[in-house]
């Protein structure tokens, strides 16, 4: 096939194709989106694997993410150091997991990480409160929020230890067939 791009070597592009759910064309299109975010920072030649990170503020201003209540958590989960600044690898990873080709288990794993605000490997009551607050934007009163958190823990906590583990989360996702289509960002 006519391979006229000069951004990546052939091996790099093959590796990207094998490690993400994207085709060659989509990877190039995503690269140009990434480059558009910070044209001065991102070189047009990645054959030498430059170490370039686009800061979180620019990532969070993308039209696909700028109104999402969880954009900061998404960027933090997929970035290398958890600070939201993303390399091209992180960027491709993020959109690959959020694309419609990713399987349910992979999405559930990353969704769990996104909702786990304090990064302790469990979704505890505090994480739930943060989630509910972000979702409802202050429309619910504090006692309603805590009531909601109680109910969620009561419904989903299988081993009754007061917090949700990854298994509880995945079990709950199994009963929500809409999850695959809603945990999806179109780009």
């Amino acid at each position: 096939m006519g391979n006229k791009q000069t951004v990546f070597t052939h091996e790099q592009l093959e590796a990207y194709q094998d490690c993400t759910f994207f085709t060659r064309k989509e990877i190039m299109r995503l690269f140009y989106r990434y480059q558009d975010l910070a044209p001065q920072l991102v070189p047009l030649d990645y054959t030498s694997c430059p170490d370039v990170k686009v800061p979180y503020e620019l990532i969070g201003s993308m039209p696909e993410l700028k109104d999402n209540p969880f954009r900061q958590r998404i960027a933090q989960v997929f970035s290398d150091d958890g600070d939201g600044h993303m390399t091209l690898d992180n960027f491709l990873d993020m959109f690959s997991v959020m694309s419609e080709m990713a399987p349910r288990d992979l999405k559930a794993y990353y969704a769990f990480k996104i909702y786990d605000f304090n990064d302790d490997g469990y979704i505890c009551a505090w994480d739930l409160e943060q989630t509910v607050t972000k979702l409802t934007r202050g429309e619910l009163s504090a006692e309603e929020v805590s009531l909601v958190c109680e109910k969620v823990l009561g419904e989903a906590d299988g081993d009754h230890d007061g917090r949700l583990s990854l298994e509880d989360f995945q079990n709950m996702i199994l009963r929500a067939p809409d999850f695959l289509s809603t945990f999806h960002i179109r780009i």
Partner: protein
Amino acid sequence: MLSDDQLNEIIVEAENVPSRVVPEKTPVNSSFSMVSSISDIDVTDSQSFGNPDDKKSKQLLRFSTSLNESFLQTLHRSPGSVGIDTSHENIQGQKLIASLIPMTSRDRIKAIRNQPRTMEEKRNLKKMVDKEKSKQSHRILELNCCAQCLNSISRAYRRSKNSLSELLTYISLWQKTFKVIGGKFGTSVLSYFNFLRWLLKFNIFSFIVTFSFIIIPQFTVPEKNTLQFTGLEFFTGAGYFQDTVMYYGFYTNSTVQHGSSGAPYNMQLAYIFTTGAYLIVCFFSLLFSMARNFRNNFINPHIYSRGITKLIFCWDFTITHERAVKLKQKNLSTEIRENLSEIRQENVKLTLNQQLIHVLAHLAAWVVSTGVAIACCVAVYYLAENNSEFLKNHQNPGAVLLLPFLVSCINLATPRLYSLFRLVERYETPRREVYILLIRNIFLKISIIGILCYYWLNIVAQAGEECWETLIGQEIYRLLLMDFVFSLADSLLGEFLRRLIGMQFPTSLGLQEFDIARNVLELIYAQTLVWIGTFFCPLLPFIQMITLFIMFYVKNISLMMNFQPPSKAWRASQMMTFFIFLLFFPSFTGVLCTLAITIWRLKPSADCGPFRGLPFFIHSIYSWIDTLSKRSGYLWVVWIYQNLIGSVHFFFILTLIVLIITYLYWQITEGRKIMIRLLHEQIINEGKDKMFLIEKLAKLQDMEKRANTSSFSMERRDVEQTSPLHVREHNAAHDLRFRRSVQEENPKV
């Protein structure tokens, strides 16, 4: 029995669960888990549809087991130590790589893709696996050339599949529009437009097939068209169009041959085989997409909960417009509040009186809706019967439009009437309300189509009219056209007016919401008509193509201008499963029945069309088989026809085999449901055990502290304390053993 063995296998593999789930603190990364991998058996990759055998899924299960182990150990060391080269890490990495090497390259790539690791880790993993594999292949030089061949074939296949999918996404229609609609209105409204695009693909395919095999050959032997063209033909379909390729009657029954050396083209066979071919393709594609949707979206009904958890964790990430997000947040808050209050009201029991009233209300609503449907059907039949005399009395050519007009009015008014029943009836869940409304609407639409088919096949076809097939084709064309005009009017005028009215009284009505169910049913109704009509009017898929194209843009514009995003969560994926099921079951099977009756029972008209003069349509196939049996090279076709297609025994045996396989699969499913329930109970019990042990540990530590701070009476207290401790331990152990024995008894159920 097969099911018991399978059950035992699953029990064996599942008994490993407790030992791995228990460790004190399993970090997130380590548990790409057992539970999910068991669920893999049921809910495997949505992509790999062509992968039904259990062996592959068991492979994946074992793979994720070993992965689990290696992850557990790897990250038990330190969270950020992926790059550190300790010898222990190396061993675990080797284990992972070793499990990846024996897989085929396709499976390996899929496994690597599905890993929850960063890109760099995946790349390194791939590099290491490739290195190991090349090292190994140096040693095993006599890898069969068969395997090498297969390898290169699979690589070429993968590359061609990639380029094909690239091509498809390139020509995929309306990608950007979908993004905008999804961004503003969410996944549920998008599912309607997805459905529209999917039906459009059906029609494009049908059109291509009929165009290439029927219409183009007919163009090469044109007959003179002596009728005049007036503008009215676009509405009535009669007149000038009667003698064009549009209708069945125009087609020749001869064998088209160009020159003495050209291949003969039998028009009769082409017509019947083309119809059969695209119906079979439609059948299989409907079946496969229904199965795929069902598999992805089916939930065990007894685990279904009306809970609040799904509202919290299923935020729609596809919504990107600021105002839409704010609106969705507000709606979510309202729904959460409703949910909270519902739970408080759940315990209120209804008195006997109230229950009786509810049942009566339901009964009355059903009686009224069925009555209305039957009344409409009777009206349609009566009008259809008297239509012919009516037409003879009134010479106006536009009078044929009366019947389609009536049908479209019924289709417009009656669903809205059904929605009004909501004021009288009370349902437990909104989901049930939507399903019942859908069932009533589909009953109405299918009965109208049914009554019309009955009229056409029993009365029009046997009335002795000239070219009755063309008449039916014209009727269907008019029905479709009138339906299209009404939909356009509804979208452009009706919804616009509704918005103006809503703006005048902002407090009460507000903007309307897109009624997905009603619109999808209209699409299904139109598609049913197209499927029936293609036999009589081969250009119909083309017309439907144009119709759908225009409808997409009209609905899109109307949506952007007149509607607001939906306020309640609509279970899009489950609904789509139901819609595709509706498209398949009453709609497509009805079409198959109608066409089967036409082809096997009806007499073609004597003067027009490809089957003129034959006693039945099917006789074209019979005579073809007869001619084939006289030629020596094609006797195998005749044999297949006589012994497989034409014989009853073959179908009997086939049906028996299919029933047996279905029964076996059903038993396996039942066994797995029991397994799921048991595992669920096991998880709960393990949790209780954990809490109990933690409590005991805390008490022990407490006691130690007290023992350390006290003086010489320590020993006496210890002796006193340990014996009740022993007793308690005994009881605890007894409890655990009791629980386990209860569990072991359960599989025997």
